[in-house]
Protein backbone atom coordinates (compact mmCIF):
# COMPACT_ATOMS: atom_id res chain seq x y z
CA UNK A 1 0.00 0.00 0.00
CA UNK A 2 1.26 3.46 -0.78
CA UNK A 3 2.38 5.15 2.42
CA UNK A 4 0.93 8.46 1.18
CA UNK A 5 -2.63 7.12 1.31
CA UNK A 6 -4.34 8.26 4.49
CA UNK A 7 -7.87 7.07 3.82
CA UNK A 8 -9.53 4.45 1.69
CA UNK A 9 -13.01 4.06 0.32
CA UNK A 10 -15.14 1.07 1.24
CA UNK A 11 -18.47 -0.03 -0.17
CA UNK A 12 -21.36 -1.11 2.01
CA UNK A 13 -23.66 -4.00 1.12
CA UNK A 14 -26.22 -1.34 0.07
CA UNK A 15 -23.75 0.03 -2.48
CA UNK A 16 -22.92 3.26 -0.61
CA UNK A 17 -19.33 4.47 -0.45
CA UNK A 18 -17.67 5.47 2.82
CA UNK A 19 -14.24 6.91 3.60
CA UNK A 20 -12.24 5.39 6.45
CA UNK A 21 -8.75 6.39 7.52
CA UNK A 22 -6.08 3.74 7.16
CA UNK A 23 -5.32 3.80 10.88
CA UNK A 24 -9.01 3.19 11.68
CA UNK A 25 -9.33 0.45 9.06
CA UNK A 26 -6.46 -1.38 10.74
CA UNK A 27 -8.72 -2.15 13.71
CA UNK A 28 -10.39 -4.73 11.47
CA UNK A 29 -8.23 -7.73 10.75
CA UNK A 30 -9.66 -8.44 7.26
CA UNK A 31 -9.30 -4.75 6.27
CA UNK A 32 -5.79 -4.73 7.65
CA UNK A 33 -4.88 -7.80 5.58
CA UNK A 34 -6.39 -6.09 2.56
CA UNK A 35 -4.33 -2.97 3.21
CA UNK A 36 -1.19 -5.08 3.36
CA UNK A 37 -1.98 -7.05 0.21
CA UNK A 38 -3.53 -4.46 -2.10
CA UNK A 39 -1.80 -1.40 -3.46
CA UNK A 40 -4.18 1.44 -2.64
CA UNK A 41 -3.29 4.77 -4.13
CA UNK A 42 -5.04 7.86 -5.41
CA UNK A 43 -5.37 6.40 -8.89
CA UNK A 44 -6.37 2.93 -7.65
CA UNK A 45 -10.00 2.16 -8.45
CA UNK A 46 -10.26 -0.91 -6.23
CA UNK A 47 -12.95 -0.39 -3.60
CA UNK A 48 -13.38 -3.22 -1.09
CA UNK A 49 -16.96 -4.24 -0.43
CA UNK A 50 -17.91 -4.85 3.15
CA UNK A 51 -20.93 -7.07 3.71
CA UNK A 52 -22.42 -4.67 6.24
CA UNK A 53 -25.37 -2.37 5.59
CA UNK A 54 -24.83 1.39 5.39
CA UNK A 55 -26.50 2.27 8.69
CA UNK A 56 -24.36 -0.21 10.57
CA UNK A 57 -21.19 0.64 8.67
CA UNK A 58 -21.50 4.31 9.60
CA UNK A 59 -21.47 3.34 13.28
CA UNK A 60 -18.63 0.85 12.84
CA UNK A 61 -16.51 3.51 11.13
CA UNK A 62 -17.36 6.01 13.87
CA UNK A 63 -16.15 3.48 16.47
CA UNK A 64 -12.96 2.76 14.51
CA UNK A 65 -12.08 6.44 14.05
CA UNK A 66 -12.54 7.07 17.79
CA UNK A 67 -10.48 4.07 18.88
CA UNK A 68 -7.73 4.21 16.25
CA UNK A 69 -5.46 6.77 17.98
CA UNK A 70 -5.36 4.70 21.16
CA UNK A 71 -4.92 1.41 19.33
CA UNK A 72 -2.04 2.79 17.28
CA UNK A 73 -0.13 4.72 19.89
CA UNK A 74 -1.36 3.60 23.28
CA UNK A 75 -3.03 5.95 25.73
CA UNK A 76 -2.78 7.23 29.24
CA UNK A 77 -5.11 6.00 31.99
CA UNK A 78 -7.21 9.16 31.68
CA UNK A 79 -7.55 8.66 27.89
CA UNK A 80 -8.64 5.07 28.50
CA UNK A 81 -11.18 6.25 31.04
CA UNK A 82 -12.50 8.87 28.62
CA UNK A 83 -12.76 6.24 25.88
CA UNK A 84 -14.66 3.93 28.22
CA UNK A 85 -17.21 6.69 28.87
CA UNK A 86 -17.50 7.35 25.13
CA UNK A 87 -18.13 3.61 24.54
CA UNK A 88 -20.98 3.63 27.05
CA UNK A 89 -22.60 6.63 25.38
CA UNK A 90 -22.00 5.17 21.91
CA UNK A 91 -23.84 2.02 22.86
CA UNK A 92 -26.52 3.70 24.94
CA UNK A 93 -27.51 6.56 22.71
CA UNK A 94 -26.86 5.56 19.16
CA UNK A 95 -26.76 1.92 18.39
CA UNK A 96 -29.30 0.20 20.59
CA UNK A 97 -31.67 -0.35 17.69
CA UNK A 98 -28.97 -1.85 15.47
CA UNK A 99 -27.10 -3.64 18.22
CA UNK A 100 -27.36 -7.09 16.72
CA UNK A 101 -26.22 -5.77 13.33
CA UNK A 102 -23.23 -4.16 15.04
CA UNK A 103 -22.51 -7.47 16.75
CA UNK A 104 -22.57 -9.36 13.48
CA UNK A 105 -20.46 -6.69 11.78
CA UNK A 106 -17.87 -6.75 14.59
CA UNK A 107 -17.71 -10.52 14.31
CA UNK A 108 -17.42 -10.40 10.50
CA UNK A 109 -14.76 -7.67 10.62
CA UNK A 110 -12.84 -9.40 13.46
CA UNK A 111 -12.99 -6.33 15.69
CA UNK A 112 -12.38 -7.67 19.16
CA UNK A 113 -13.01 -4.45 21.09
CA UNK A 114 -16.31 -3.64 19.38
CA UNK A 115 -17.40 -7.28 19.60
CA UNK A 116 -16.79 -7.38 23.36
CA UNK A 117 -18.58 -4.07 23.82
CA UNK A 118 -21.61 -5.11 21.76
CA UNK A 119 -21.84 -8.53 23.43
CA UNK A 120 -21.78 -6.91 26.87
CA UNK A 121 -24.40 -4.36 25.82
CA UNK A 122 -26.68 -7.13 24.53
CA UNK A 123 -26.17 -9.06 27.78
CA UNK A 124 -26.90 -5.93 29.85
CA UNK A 125 -30.18 -5.43 27.98
CA UNK A 126 -31.24 -8.96 28.94
CA UNK A 127 -30.24 -8.49 32.56
CA UNK A 128 -33.05 -9.26 34.99
CA UNK A 129 -35.55 -10.19 32.26
CA UNK A 130 -38.12 -12.85 32.99
CA UNK A 131 -38.49 -15.90 30.78
CA UNK A 132 -41.63 -14.51 29.12
CA UNK A 133 -40.00 -11.12 28.54
CA UNK A 134 -37.09 -12.77 26.72
CA UNK A 135 -39.51 -14.81 24.62
CA UNK A 136 -41.47 -11.71 23.66
CA UNK A 137 -38.53 -9.44 22.89
CA UNK A 138 -36.64 -12.01 20.84
CA UNK A 139 -39.70 -13.60 19.21
CA UNK A 140 -38.87 -17.01 20.66
CA UNK A 141 -41.46 -19.75 20.82
CA UNK A 142 -41.54 -21.96 23.89
CA UNK A 143 -40.88 -25.48 22.65
CA UNK A 144 -40.62 -27.18 26.04
CA UNK A 145 -43.33 -29.65 26.95
CA UNK A 146 -45.09 -28.98 30.27
CA UNK A 147 -43.21 -31.94 31.80
CA UNK A 148 -39.89 -30.52 30.64
CA UNK A 149 -40.79 -27.11 32.02
CA UNK A 150 -41.63 -28.59 35.38
CA UNK A 151 -38.38 -30.53 35.39
CA UNK A 152 -36.43 -27.35 34.59
CA UNK A 153 -38.20 -25.47 37.34
CA UNK A 154 -37.18 -28.18 39.80
CA UNK A 155 -33.59 -28.33 38.55
CA UNK A 156 -33.01 -24.60 38.31
CA UNK A 157 -35.60 -22.63 40.24
CA UNK A 158 -33.35 -19.62 39.66
CA UNK A 159 -29.96 -19.09 41.16
CA UNK A 160 -30.13 -20.55 44.64
CA UNK A 161 -28.16 -17.59 46.02
CA UNK A 162 -30.44 -14.86 44.66
Amino acid at each position, binding site marked *: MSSSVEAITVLSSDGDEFKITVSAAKLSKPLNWMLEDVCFSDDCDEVPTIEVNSKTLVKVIEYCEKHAPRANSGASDSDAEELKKWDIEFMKMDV*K*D*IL*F*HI*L*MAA*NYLHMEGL*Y*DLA*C*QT*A*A*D*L*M*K*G*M*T*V*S*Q*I*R*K*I*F*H*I*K*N*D*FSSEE*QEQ*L*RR*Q*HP*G*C*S*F*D
Partner: protein
Amino acid sequence: MEESNQEELRIDEKSFDLVPSNIFNIHREILEGICDRLSISDQLQFARVCKSCHSLVFERHNPKARETLSLVGLTEDPHFCGKRIQKQITCYQIHPKSFQHSNPCIIGSFKGWLFLQYHKEKFIQLVNLFSKIHLDLPPLDAMKFIPSDGHMKFIPSDVRMKLIYGPTMFVRAFAVLFCIRMRPVLTAIVSNSWKLLLCKIGGSAWEAHETDEQYVNVAFYKKKLYAMRKNYNKVDIFEIDHDLKRIPVGGIEIDDALKLFPLAITGSSQLINAPSSWGRPFQAYLVVDSQEDNLFLVMHHRKEVKVQFLTVEFEIYKVYGNRLVKVDTLGDQIVLLNASCSEMIDVKDCPPSFYFHGNQICFKKSSKNLGIYSFKDGIVNWLPQFRGFDCIHWMIPRLAGKCSCESHIMPYP
Protein backbone atom coordinates in the same frame (compact mmCIF):
# COMPACT_ATOMS: atom_id res chain seq x y z
CA MET B 1 -45.61 -9.82 40.70
CA GLU B 2 -46.89 -11.25 37.46
CA GLU B 3 -44.29 -11.52 34.74
CA SER B 4 -46.45 -9.58 32.25
CA ASN B 5 -46.75 -6.62 34.64
CA GLN B 6 -43.00 -6.60 35.18
CA GLU B 7 -42.59 -6.38 31.42
CA GLU B 8 -44.64 -3.20 31.19
CA LEU B 9 -42.64 -1.63 33.96
CA ARG B 10 -39.19 -2.27 32.66
CA ILE B 11 -38.87 -3.03 29.02
CA ASP B 12 -38.61 -0.33 26.41
CA GLU B 13 -39.60 -2.46 23.47
CA LYS B 14 -38.64 0.20 20.93
CA SER B 15 -35.05 -0.58 21.89
CA PHE B 16 -35.47 -3.95 20.27
CA ASP B 17 -37.26 -2.90 17.09
CA LEU B 18 -34.60 -4.26 14.82
CA VAL B 19 -33.88 -7.46 16.72
CA PRO B 20 -33.63 -10.18 14.06
CA SER B 21 -36.91 -12.03 13.64
CA ASN B 22 -35.13 -15.21 14.65
CA ILE B 23 -32.13 -14.66 16.90
CA PHE B 24 -31.00 -18.21 16.20
CA ASN B 25 -30.09 -17.04 12.69
CA ILE B 26 -27.25 -15.21 14.38
CA HIS B 27 -24.03 -17.21 14.56
CA ARG B 28 -24.04 -19.46 17.60
CA GLU B 29 -20.59 -18.12 18.47
CA ILE B 30 -22.09 -14.64 18.94
CA LEU B 31 -24.96 -15.92 21.08
CA GLU B 32 -22.47 -17.86 23.20
CA GLY B 33 -20.48 -14.65 23.61
CA ILE B 34 -23.59 -12.91 24.93
CA CYS B 35 -24.32 -15.84 27.26
CA ASP B 36 -20.81 -15.65 28.70
CA ARG B 37 -21.53 -12.05 29.67
CA LEU B 38 -24.72 -12.83 31.59
CA SER B 39 -24.75 -13.46 35.31
CA ILE B 40 -25.51 -16.98 36.50
CA SER B 41 -29.10 -16.12 37.49
CA ASP B 42 -29.72 -14.50 34.07
CA GLN B 43 -28.24 -17.56 32.34
CA LEU B 44 -30.59 -19.82 34.28
CA GLN B 45 -33.55 -17.67 33.22
CA PHE B 46 -32.37 -17.73 29.60
CA ALA B 47 -32.04 -21.53 29.71
CA ARG B 48 -35.75 -21.82 30.47
CA VAL B 49 -36.84 -19.83 27.39
CA CYS B 50 -36.64 -22.66 24.84
CA LYS B 51 -34.59 -25.72 23.95
CA SER B 52 -32.11 -23.74 21.83
CA CYS B 53 -31.53 -21.29 24.70
CA HIS B 54 -31.10 -24.22 27.10
CA SER B 55 -28.50 -25.68 24.77
CA LEU B 56 -26.71 -22.33 24.55
CA VAL B 57 -26.43 -22.11 28.33
CA PHE B 58 -25.49 -25.69 29.12
CA GLU B 59 -23.87 -26.99 25.96
CA ARG B 60 -21.36 -24.34 24.98
CA HIS B 61 -17.60 -24.55 25.10
CA ASN B 62 -15.81 -23.15 28.12
CA PRO B 63 -18.89 -21.50 29.65
CA LYS B 64 -18.30 -18.38 31.74
CA ALA B 65 -20.52 -16.04 33.68
CA ARG B 66 -20.28 -12.34 34.43
CA GLU B 67 -19.85 -12.66 38.15
CA THR B 68 -17.89 -10.80 40.75
CA LEU B 69 -14.78 -12.28 42.24
CA SER B 70 -16.05 -13.66 45.54
CA LEU B 71 -15.30 -15.45 48.76
CA VAL B 72 -16.82 -18.79 49.63
CA GLY B 73 -16.81 -20.46 53.01
CA LEU B 74 -18.76 -22.15 55.76
CA THR B 75 -20.83 -20.59 58.49
CA GLU B 76 -22.75 -22.19 61.33
CA ASP B 77 -24.88 -19.08 61.77
CA PRO B 78 -28.10 -19.38 59.74
CA HIS B 79 -28.42 -15.56 59.67
CA PHE B 80 -25.31 -15.28 57.55
CA CYS B 81 -26.08 -18.07 55.09
CA GLY B 82 -26.41 -17.30 51.39
CA LYS B 83 -25.01 -14.64 49.11
CA ARG B 84 -24.16 -11.39 50.88
CA ILE B 85 -22.07 -8.34 50.19
CA GLN B 86 -19.76 -7.82 53.14
CA LYS B 87 -17.19 -5.07 53.25
CA GLN B 88 -17.67 -4.59 49.49
CA ILE B 89 -16.85 -8.24 48.77
CA THR B 90 -19.42 -10.75 47.55
CA CYS B 91 -19.48 -13.65 50.01
CA TYR B 92 -21.14 -17.03 49.60
CA GLN B 93 -21.60 -18.37 53.12
CA ILE B 94 -22.81 -21.91 53.26
CA HIS B 95 -24.17 -23.83 56.20
CA PRO B 96 -22.30 -27.15 56.60
CA LYS B 97 -25.65 -28.94 56.63
CA SER B 98 -26.28 -27.78 53.04
CA PHE B 99 -23.84 -30.42 51.87
CA GLN B 100 -24.59 -34.09 51.50
CA HIS B 101 -22.52 -35.38 54.41
CA SER B 102 -21.48 -34.12 57.81
CA ASN B 103 -18.32 -32.23 58.77
CA PRO B 104 -17.49 -30.76 55.37
CA CYS B 105 -14.23 -28.95 54.89
CA ILE B 106 -13.74 -26.81 51.78
CA ILE B 107 -10.27 -27.69 50.58
CA GLY B 108 -10.39 -25.14 47.77
CA SER B 109 -12.21 -23.68 44.82
CA PHE B 110 -11.41 -23.94 41.11
CA LYS B 111 -13.43 -22.63 38.16
CA GLY B 112 -16.64 -22.49 40.19
CA TRP B 113 -16.22 -25.96 41.69
CA LEU B 114 -15.54 -26.61 45.35
CA PHE B 115 -13.29 -29.45 46.41
CA LEU B 116 -14.78 -30.84 49.61
CA GLN B 117 -13.55 -33.34 52.10
CA TYR B 118 -15.97 -34.71 54.68
CA HIS B 119 -13.90 -35.57 57.67
CA LYS B 120 -16.31 -37.80 59.50
CA GLU B 121 -17.17 -40.08 56.62
CA LYS B 122 -13.91 -39.45 54.74
CA PHE B 123 -15.80 -38.75 51.53
CA ILE B 124 -14.43 -36.42 48.89
CA GLN B 125 -16.63 -34.47 46.50
CA LEU B 126 -16.43 -31.92 43.74
CA VAL B 127 -19.42 -29.60 44.07
CA ASN B 128 -20.74 -26.93 41.75
CA LEU B 129 -23.06 -24.88 43.94
CA PHE B 130 -24.54 -22.98 41.02
CA SER B 131 -25.40 -26.00 38.88
CA LYS B 132 -26.18 -28.05 42.00
CA ILE B 133 -23.95 -30.91 40.97
CA HIS B 134 -22.21 -33.18 43.46
CA LEU B 135 -19.58 -35.53 42.04
CA ASP B 136 -18.34 -38.22 44.40
CA LEU B 137 -14.68 -39.13 44.46
CA PRO B 138 -13.36 -42.21 46.23
CA PRO B 139 -12.48 -41.68 49.91
CA LEU B 140 -8.82 -41.57 50.76
CA ASP B 141 -7.89 -44.70 52.65
CA ALA B 142 -7.46 -44.17 56.34
CA MET B 143 -3.81 -44.10 57.15
CA LYS B 144 -2.11 -43.69 60.49
CA PHE B 145 -0.57 -40.26 60.38
CA ILE B 146 1.05 -38.65 63.37
CA PRO B 147 2.20 -35.26 62.23
CA SER B 148 5.45 -33.95 63.55
CA ASP B 149 5.59 -30.34 64.70
CA GLY B 150 7.18 -29.42 61.43
CA HIS B 151 4.39 -31.01 59.44
CA MET B 152 1.69 -29.39 61.52
CA LYS B 153 2.90 -25.97 60.47
CA PHE B 154 2.02 -26.73 56.87
CA ILE B 155 -1.53 -27.67 57.69
CA PRO B 156 -4.14 -24.92 57.54
CA SER B 157 -5.45 -24.25 61.02
CA ASP B 158 -9.04 -25.17 60.14
CA VAL B 159 -7.87 -28.52 58.79
CA ARG B 160 -5.46 -29.00 61.67
CA MET B 161 -8.25 -28.96 64.24
CA LYS B 162 -10.16 -31.53 62.30
CA LEU B 163 -7.01 -33.58 61.90
CA ILE B 164 -6.61 -33.87 65.64
CA TYR B 165 -10.15 -35.09 66.15
CA GLY B 166 -11.04 -36.79 62.93
CA PRO B 167 -9.44 -37.98 59.76
CA THR B 168 -6.00 -39.35 59.31
CA MET B 169 -5.57 -38.32 55.70
CA PHE B 170 -6.42 -35.12 53.94
CA VAL B 171 -5.97 -33.30 50.68
CA ARG B 172 -3.21 -30.71 50.65
CA ALA B 173 -3.58 -29.53 47.04
CA PHE B 174 -5.62 -30.49 44.03
CA ALA B 175 -6.03 -29.91 40.30
CA VAL B 176 -8.99 -30.65 38.07
CA LEU B 177 -8.97 -31.35 34.35
CA PHE B 178 -12.22 -30.31 32.66
CA CYS B 179 -13.81 -31.23 29.37
CA ILE B 180 -14.65 -28.42 26.95
CA ARG B 181 -17.99 -27.86 28.70
CA MET B 182 -16.43 -27.45 32.13
CA ARG B 183 -17.33 -30.85 33.51
CA PRO B 184 -14.56 -32.40 35.58
CA VAL B 185 -12.89 -35.35 33.89
CA LEU B 186 -9.86 -36.10 36.00
CA THR B 187 -8.53 -34.90 39.32
CA ALA B 188 -5.07 -34.98 40.85
CA ILE B 189 -4.33 -34.38 44.50
CA VAL B 190 -1.36 -34.02 46.78
CA SER B 191 -2.12 -35.90 49.98
CA ASN B 192 -1.06 -34.92 53.47
CA SER B 193 2.00 -37.15 53.02
CA TRP B 194 2.91 -35.14 49.88
CA LYS B 195 1.98 -38.01 47.58
CA LEU B 196 0.55 -37.48 44.13
CA LEU B 197 -2.73 -39.33 43.55
CA LEU B 198 -5.00 -39.39 40.51
CA CYS B 199 -8.59 -40.36 39.95
CA LYS B 200 -10.98 -40.23 37.01
CA ILE B 201 -14.39 -38.79 37.76
CA GLY B 202 -16.53 -41.86 38.34
CA GLY B 203 -13.47 -43.96 39.18
CA SER B 204 -13.41 -46.20 42.23
CA ALA B 205 -9.89 -45.63 43.53
CA TRP B 206 -7.05 -43.15 43.74
CA GLU B 207 -4.00 -44.16 41.71
CA ALA B 208 -0.77 -43.41 43.52
CA HIS B 209 2.45 -42.28 41.90
CA GLU B 210 5.01 -45.07 41.97
CA THR B 211 8.03 -43.03 43.07
CA ASP B 212 8.92 -41.63 46.45
CA GLU B 213 8.95 -38.11 45.09
CA GLN B 214 7.00 -35.61 47.18
CA TYR B 215 5.02 -32.69 45.83
CA VAL B 216 3.41 -29.49 47.10
CA ASN B 217 1.06 -28.44 44.34
CA VAL B 218 -0.23 -29.49 40.95
CA ALA B 219 -1.88 -28.03 37.85
CA PHE B 220 -3.19 -29.32 34.56
CA TYR B 221 -1.90 -27.34 31.61
CA LYS B 222 -2.32 -28.22 27.93
CA LYS B 223 -3.41 -31.76 28.79
CA LYS B 224 -0.33 -32.41 30.93
CA LEU B 225 0.06 -32.61 34.68
CA TYR B 226 2.59 -30.23 36.23
CA ALA B 227 3.67 -31.10 39.77
CA MET B 228 5.89 -28.91 41.94
CA ARG B 229 8.35 -30.93 44.03
CA LYS B 230 8.24 -30.38 47.75
CA ASN B 231 11.77 -28.99 47.84
CA TYR B 232 10.87 -26.51 45.07
CA ASN B 233 13.82 -27.58 42.94
CA LYS B 234 11.81 -28.92 40.00
CA VAL B 235 8.40 -29.03 38.39
CA ASP B 236 7.80 -32.51 36.95
CA ILE B 237 5.68 -32.76 33.80
CA PHE B 238 3.62 -35.87 33.11
CA GLU B 239 1.34 -37.15 30.43
CA ILE B 240 -1.44 -39.33 31.80
CA ASP B 241 -2.44 -42.43 29.91
CA HIS B 242 -5.84 -44.10 29.90
CA ASP B 243 -4.90 -46.23 32.92
CA LEU B 244 -3.86 -43.13 34.85
CA LYS B 245 -0.19 -44.05 34.57
CA ARG B 246 2.07 -41.03 34.71
CA ILE B 247 4.53 -40.80 31.87
CA PRO B 248 7.30 -38.27 32.61
CA VAL B 249 7.73 -36.00 29.62
CA GLY B 250 10.01 -33.33 31.01
CA GLY B 251 10.55 -30.93 33.82
CA ILE B 252 11.34 -27.39 34.74
CA GLU B 253 14.55 -27.24 36.73
CA ILE B 254 14.55 -24.74 39.54
CA ASP B 255 17.87 -25.85 40.97
CA ASP B 256 19.60 -22.56 40.30
CA ALA B 257 17.64 -21.19 43.19
CA LEU B 258 20.03 -18.42 44.12
CA LYS B 259 19.77 -16.97 40.66
CA LEU B 260 16.08 -17.51 40.16
CA PHE B 261 14.83 -16.67 43.61
CA PRO B 262 17.33 -14.20 45.04
CA LEU B 263 14.75 -12.77 47.42
CA ALA B 264 14.06 -16.15 48.87
CA ILE B 265 17.65 -16.70 49.85
CA THR B 266 19.08 -13.28 50.57
CA GLY B 267 15.91 -11.35 51.23
CA SER B 268 14.75 -8.13 49.65
CA SER B 269 15.52 -6.39 52.90
CA GLN B 270 17.30 -7.20 56.12
CA LEU B 271 13.99 -8.03 57.75
CA ILE B 272 13.71 -11.38 56.07
CA ASN B 273 14.74 -14.09 58.48
CA ALA B 274 16.54 -17.23 57.62
CA PRO B 275 14.06 -20.05 57.24
CA SER B 276 13.30 -21.98 60.38
CA SER B 277 11.64 -25.36 60.03
CA TRP B 278 10.55 -24.34 56.51
CA GLY B 279 12.91 -25.08 53.69
CA ARG B 280 12.63 -21.53 52.39
CA PRO B 281 10.76 -18.39 53.40
CA PHE B 282 8.47 -18.58 50.42
CA GLN B 283 5.78 -20.67 48.85
CA ALA B 284 5.41 -21.32 45.12
CA TYR B 285 2.23 -22.04 43.20
CA LEU B 286 1.50 -23.23 39.68
CA VAL B 287 -1.23 -21.16 38.02
CA VAL B 288 -2.72 -21.30 34.52
CA ASP B 289 -4.13 -18.09 32.99
CA SER B 290 -7.82 -17.59 32.22
CA GLN B 291 -7.45 -18.42 28.52
CA GLU B 292 -5.39 -21.51 29.43
CA ASP B 293 -2.66 -20.19 27.15
CA ASN B 294 0.10 -19.73 29.69
CA LEU B 295 1.43 -21.37 32.83
CA PHE B 296 2.88 -19.23 35.59
CA LEU B 297 4.83 -19.83 38.75
CA VAL B 298 3.78 -17.46 41.53
CA MET B 299 6.29 -16.89 44.30
CA HIS B 300 4.95 -15.69 47.61
CA HIS B 301 7.86 -14.30 49.60
CA ARG B 302 7.44 -14.00 53.32
CA LYS B 303 9.22 -12.86 56.39
CA GLU B 304 8.85 -14.59 59.71
CA VAL B 305 7.82 -12.69 62.80
CA LYS B 306 7.57 -14.93 65.85
CA VAL B 307 5.37 -17.79 64.67
CA GLN B 308 3.58 -15.97 61.88
CA PHE B 309 4.61 -15.42 58.31
CA LEU B 310 3.88 -11.96 57.01
CA THR B 311 3.65 -11.24 53.33
CA VAL B 312 6.57 -9.46 51.81
CA GLU B 313 5.91 -9.56 48.10
CA PHE B 314 5.05 -11.66 45.09
CA GLU B 315 6.95 -12.52 41.97
CA ILE B 316 5.58 -14.12 38.85
CA TYR B 317 7.46 -16.27 36.36
CA LYS B 318 6.04 -17.34 33.04
CA VAL B 319 6.85 -20.85 31.86
CA TYR B 320 8.37 -21.04 28.37
CA GLY B 321 9.02 -24.72 27.63
CA ASN B 322 11.31 -25.67 30.46
CA ARG B 323 12.43 -22.11 31.21
CA LEU B 324 11.07 -19.53 33.63
CA VAL B 325 11.01 -15.85 32.70
CA LYS B 326 10.07 -13.21 35.24
CA VAL B 327 7.15 -10.95 34.29
CA ASP B 328 6.48 -7.52 35.79
CA THR B 329 2.78 -7.25 35.15
CA LEU B 330 -0.27 -9.46 34.90
CA GLY B 331 -2.17 -6.94 32.76
CA ASP B 332 -5.89 -7.46 33.31
CA GLN B 333 -5.39 -10.81 35.03
CA ILE B 334 -5.98 -11.48 38.73
CA VAL B 335 -4.53 -14.50 40.50
CA LEU B 336 -6.78 -16.18 43.06
CA LEU B 337 -4.11 -17.72 45.20
CA ASN B 338 -5.47 -20.48 47.41
CA ALA B 339 -3.07 -22.80 49.20
CA SER B 340 -4.65 -25.87 47.66
CA CYS B 341 -5.42 -24.69 44.14
CA SER B 342 -5.01 -21.39 42.33
CA GLU B 343 -6.49 -19.89 39.20
CA MET B 344 -6.37 -16.72 37.15
CA ILE B 345 -9.27 -14.64 35.93
CA ASP B 346 -9.53 -11.70 33.56
CA VAL B 347 -10.95 -8.63 35.26
CA LYS B 348 -12.68 -7.75 31.96
CA ASP B 349 -14.93 -10.79 32.49
CA CYS B 350 -16.19 -9.41 35.82
CA PRO B 351 -18.51 -6.50 36.59
CA PRO B 352 -16.71 -3.40 37.94
CA SER B 353 -16.00 -3.66 41.65
CA PHE B 354 -14.36 -1.68 44.39
CA TYR B 355 -11.34 -3.89 45.02
CA PHE B 356 -10.57 -5.61 41.74
CA HIS B 357 -8.88 -3.78 38.87
CA GLY B 358 -6.51 -6.38 37.40
CA ASN B 359 -2.76 -6.91 37.84
CA GLN B 360 -3.43 -8.22 41.37
CA ILE B 361 -3.06 -11.31 43.50
CA CYS B 362 -5.84 -12.22 45.94
CA PHE B 363 -4.45 -14.42 48.68
CA LYS B 364 -5.06 -15.74 52.13
CA LYS B 365 -2.53 -15.40 54.90
CA SER B 366 -4.48 -17.47 57.38
CA SER B 367 -8.00 -18.75 57.67
CA LYS B 368 -9.20 -15.23 58.50
CA ASN B 369 -6.67 -12.86 56.97
CA LEU B 370 -7.18 -12.05 53.32
CA GLY B 371 -5.16 -9.67 51.22
CA ILE B 372 -5.05 -8.24 47.72
CA TYR B 373 -1.59 -7.51 46.38
CA SER B 374 -1.24 -5.02 43.55
CA PHE B 375 1.64 -5.27 41.12
CA LYS B 376 1.07 -1.63 40.20
CA ASP B 377 2.34 -0.29 43.51
CA GLY B 378 3.51 -3.42 45.35
CA ILE B 379 1.07 -2.74 48.20
CA VAL B 380 -1.08 -5.29 50.01
CA ASN B 381 -4.64 -4.17 50.75
CA TRP B 382 -5.66 -6.22 53.80
CA LEU B 383 -9.37 -6.93 54.09
CA PRO B 384 -11.17 -6.58 57.39
CA GLN B 385 -11.72 -9.92 59.14
CA PHE B 386 -14.84 -11.90 58.32
CA ARG B 387 -16.19 -13.24 61.58
CA GLY B 388 -18.01 -16.56 61.79
CA PHE B 389 -16.88 -17.45 58.30
CA ASP B 390 -14.65 -20.55 58.10
CA CYS B 391 -12.79 -22.45 55.37
CA ILE B 392 -12.71 -19.24 53.31
CA HIS B 393 -11.44 -19.38 49.73
CA TRP B 394 -11.38 -16.99 46.80
CA MET B 395 -13.79 -18.09 44.10
CA ILE B 396 -15.21 -17.05 40.74
CA PRO B 397 -18.74 -18.42 40.26
CA ARG B 398 -19.40 -20.47 37.12
CA LEU B 399 -22.01 -22.89 35.90
CA ALA B 400 -21.08 -26.36 34.75
CA GLY B 401 -22.20 -27.51 31.33
CA LYS B 402 -23.99 -30.71 30.45
CA CYS B 403 -21.78 -33.22 28.77
CA SER B 404 -21.89 -36.78 27.64
CA CYS B 405 -18.78 -36.51 25.51
CA GLU B 406 -16.06 -39.13 25.41
CA SER B 407 -13.96 -37.00 27.74
CA HIS B 408 -15.81 -38.52 30.62
CA ILE B 409 -14.75 -41.95 29.54
CA MET B 410 -11.34 -41.13 28.13
CA PRO B 411 -8.93 -39.14 30.30
CA TYR B 412 -8.59 -36.25 27.85
CA PRO B 413 -10.97 -34.08 25.87
